[in-house]
Every structure is written in structure tokens, then in C-alpha cells.
């Protein structure tokens, strides 16, 4: 199962990146909608996606 889970993890990281591009391409400046102090795109690209990427990679390491 290891190669399958590893591939899933890599795909998840790529999906995280693609979502950022999709978000910035949405019409009517949806990405700029403010949620609290930050815009939606800043929450995603600056906070959520990097944190999710770190967590996603976390589970994939070999046990020492």
C-alpha cells in the first residue's frame, strides 16, 4: 500500500496548488472577498494551503 498512499499524498499536494490557481482565476474578484482581517486568497495561499501541505506530507515519512 505504501506506493499508493505516497502517490495520493503527492496528488493532494498538487491539488492544493491547483486550487490556488483556480481561486485566483475566479471571476468577480471572489478571491479578494475579506474574511476577517485577510482576503480569501491570502487565507488560502498564505495560511491554509501551506499548513495542509505540511500536514499532508507529515503522514508519508518512513518510520525511523
Amino acid at each position, binding site marked *: 500500500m505504501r*506506493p499508493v498512499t*505516497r502517490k495520493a*499524498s*503527492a496528488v493532494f*499536494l*498538487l491539488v*492544493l*496548488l491547483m486550487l*490556488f*490557481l483556480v481561486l*485566483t*482565476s475566479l471571476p468577480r*474578484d471572489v*478571491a*479578494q472577498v*475579506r474574511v*476577517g*482581517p*485577510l*482576503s480569501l*486568497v*491570502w487565507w488560502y*495561499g*498564505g495560511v491554509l*494551503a*501551506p*499548513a495542509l*501541505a*505540511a*500536514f*499532508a*506530507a*507529515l503522514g*508519508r*515519512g*518512513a*518510520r*525511523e
Partner: protein
Amino acid sequence: MRAAGAVLAAWLGPAIWLAVPTLLVAHGTGGLWPGLLIVVAPLLALTLRARPAADDTVAVPLVHVATHFLMVALLIWAGLVLVGDLASRLGVPRWHGIALAAAGGLLLTAWRGAERVVPLLLLVAGVSVLISLVALSATTGLSPLGAWRAVSERPAFVFPAASRWVTEGRDLRLAQGQQPLRFDEAHRVTAAAETTLRTRIREGRQTLDREVPLAAGQSFTLRPGDQLEPTAGARVKFEAGRRVPGAPATGLAWGDGGSQGLVATLVSVGLGVTLLGAGVALFGPPLADPAPRGEIVLVGAGLLATFGALQAWAVYAVLAAPEIFMGGITPDRLIDVPGLALGARPTGMRLQLVLVIAVGASFMASTVALRARLAAVDPAGDGEIGSDLGLWTMVFVVAALASLWHVDPWALSLTALGAGAAVFLPRALLPDAAARREAATVAGVVALAVYGVLLLFGRVAGLARPAGSLLGAFCEQPALLAVPAGLGALWLATRGGRRTR
């Protein structure tokens, strides 16, 4: 701990981590994409590593080792250029900074146990940046989130009354970026010492280049649309409360970052291929063994913390030091932020030095870690290539001499990383095909040739940076075509091999 430190040090060389706040300040939201890629690329590469089969002892082709060496040499060059820029900004001769950094890098090359100090150097760099951030937070009285809110509510970026550009005047050399100072509203510029201003003034439909000699205390008014060349030696004062030339119209406009067209989206995808591919080249399958979970945790935490701190730095810079926008943003200008934001000049200068220490420490750490990566890619040579003193003396001397001339360190880093992506990414995507040494060599040469041709064509024809057409986008991010070319060559070479069998 040491393995994670080596990954962070190799990836986060000064030209790369300083590019994140630079791009964020320059483009707002547009700077998030490279930052996000810088976080994800090494993590993706570490997750892709797999233990090879016992009989899988194929040596890495020479073209791959040579490309890795080229990457490392170019990244060292980019680091030295940045150190030279910082030295110039601090008023020290450019070559002093370059010579000091190159000598430090060489000393670490000569020291066999240099890898042990990499975590310490990273700690020094991290703490130094943190000290500056705490000082900026204390000065503004705002958390990073509060600072972002304050920035987005700014109706305009204006010269603060306490700015040194207003109170005592500064040398226009310090506003030297990539652009002239373009004024959006009338602005009275006053000479702090006898000087001659080089201006480009709009007269009706004409634009006139005009030199304006000024005695100390004399003023000259620039109108909307006029430009002022950031000439070295011209010491001038600006008006408090007037818009900073080159700054975005409002805080909200800065945060928006502008819309993405087709070409811009293609360039973004190309940047993704370049950085993700470079991550694979430096930390991915060529290094074989799966990364331990502890290593990934530390790398992930380190990248997250770095990205968070660099975002905060960018936001504090825009909030407390809007003068940084004058003349365009370059990485070395970020060192000015504490000096501009803090009222007390000695404290500001001390913090500038702390940031210089951060850059120096991360440069030293990156040279050690990059050489170690190169040694790991070439197991056939027992890793000798990473510690050959003669070879690295030559690299440091040539890079130091080349650094005497300014080039954009981020563009240079991308050139290095793109070459790595072009050669190593096809190998990682088609590992079975790349197991045949001849096929991998052909694919590597084809990818590198396509990469080189596009890069040169873009520079010669002036199509790249910023790209205005589809061809320009491919020239700006040559890995976009070089990687498919490498993949195609690998596939064809494998098919040819099967038929002849």
C-alpha cells in the same frame, strides 16, 4: 535534525527566501504563489522518495551530475550577488561583502565537519529575522494580522512625517530599484545638499530629459507623470503626506495584486514546474531512500514558520516603511525596513546589521548543504565532487568575480532551479525508462538543450520578464517546454531500445 536542517539550508538560500517578501511587497497577492510553491516543493519531493530495489544500482548519468553542479554553482553566484547588493546598500564597497561571503563559503568547504554547523547557522538566521519582526511589531503596536488589516484600510501610501526621506533627506541611490521614480501627484523635491536632479518631464505630448541643478535648500516641483532618475549622490527630501512614487494607489489595491490573464497563468504554471522540479532535483527520487517522518515534520514546520515570518515581514514593510516602494522593490531594499520604520536611527541600524547576519548565515549554510546534495547525487564518485577543494575554490572565485556586476538574484536562482527541473523531473516521472542510462542521458541532454535555447532566445529577443505573449511565457519559464521535451525523449529512447532488442 541534521537531515532536516540540510534540506532547509539547501532550499532556503538567501536569494530564494528573500525573494518571498520582495515579491509579496512588489505584487501583493501575486507574491503568494511563489511563496506557496517554496513551501510545497521540498515536501512533494520528500514524499516521492522511494527505496530502490536491491538490484537497482544504476549510476546517475554524467549529464545529471553536471546539471546538479551547474545548479549549485549558479545558486552560490545568486547568493554572492545578493550579499554584494546588501554591501552596496549599507555603503560598503560591493566587493568587500562578496569577498567576505566567498571566503566564508570556502572556509566551510575546507572544513570536513562543516555539516555539523548547518543547524546552528539556520538558527542564527531564523532568530535574526525574528528579532527584526518583534521590533517591527513593537514599533507598529500591531500583530501581523492587525498589520495586514491596517494595510488594507490605507487610503494611500504617503511619506510619514518622521521619515528620514522627509526630515533629513537621503541619497537617491537608496531608491535605486528597477524603475525610475514616477510621480502620480505634484511633489516638491528639496535638495538636502547641492545636487543635480535628472528628470524626465512631460510637456504637452512631448517628454523632455532635463537636468535640474539645485543648491542646498532649493526645491523643484515634479508634476503627475514626471519621472526622477534615482541618481547616486543626489541627496533630496520629499514632502510629508504626499504619495510615495511607485506605490500602489491604496492598501486594498496592493492586496488585490491585479488580475491573472492567460499569459500570466501560463507563467505561474511554469514557475510551478520550475520550483517543484527543482525540489525533485535537490531532494527527490535521485536521492533514493525515503525520508524519515521526523525529517518531514521538521522540514514542514521550518517551511511553515519561514513562510509565515516572511509574509509578516512584507506586511510590516508595506505598513511601516512605504518609502520602500520608491524605484521598485529589490531584495536588498528589504534590509532598509527596520531603518525606515523605527524612529531611533541607532536601533534601526543595529537591526539592519542583524538582518545582514541572517543573510550571511543562511548563505553559509546553503553552500554547505548544496555541496552535500551534489555529493549525494554522485554516489559513483564517493561524493568527492562535494568536497573537492580545488573545484570549489574555482567555483567561489568565478562566482565572486561574476557577482561584481549586478544581476537579479531571483532570476538567476530560477535559471538554476529550472535547469535542475528540466533534467531531473522527466527522470522522476518515468523512473523505469530512466533506469536505462543511455535513455536518461539522451533525455537529459535534450531537455537541457531546449531549456538553454529558450532561455537564450528570451534574453536576446527581450521576450521574457515580464512575458507579454505565449512565446514570452515559455521563454520566461523554459522548464515548461524543456520538461515535456525530456519526457518525450525518454519515451522515444525507451521505445527505440525495446525495438532493437
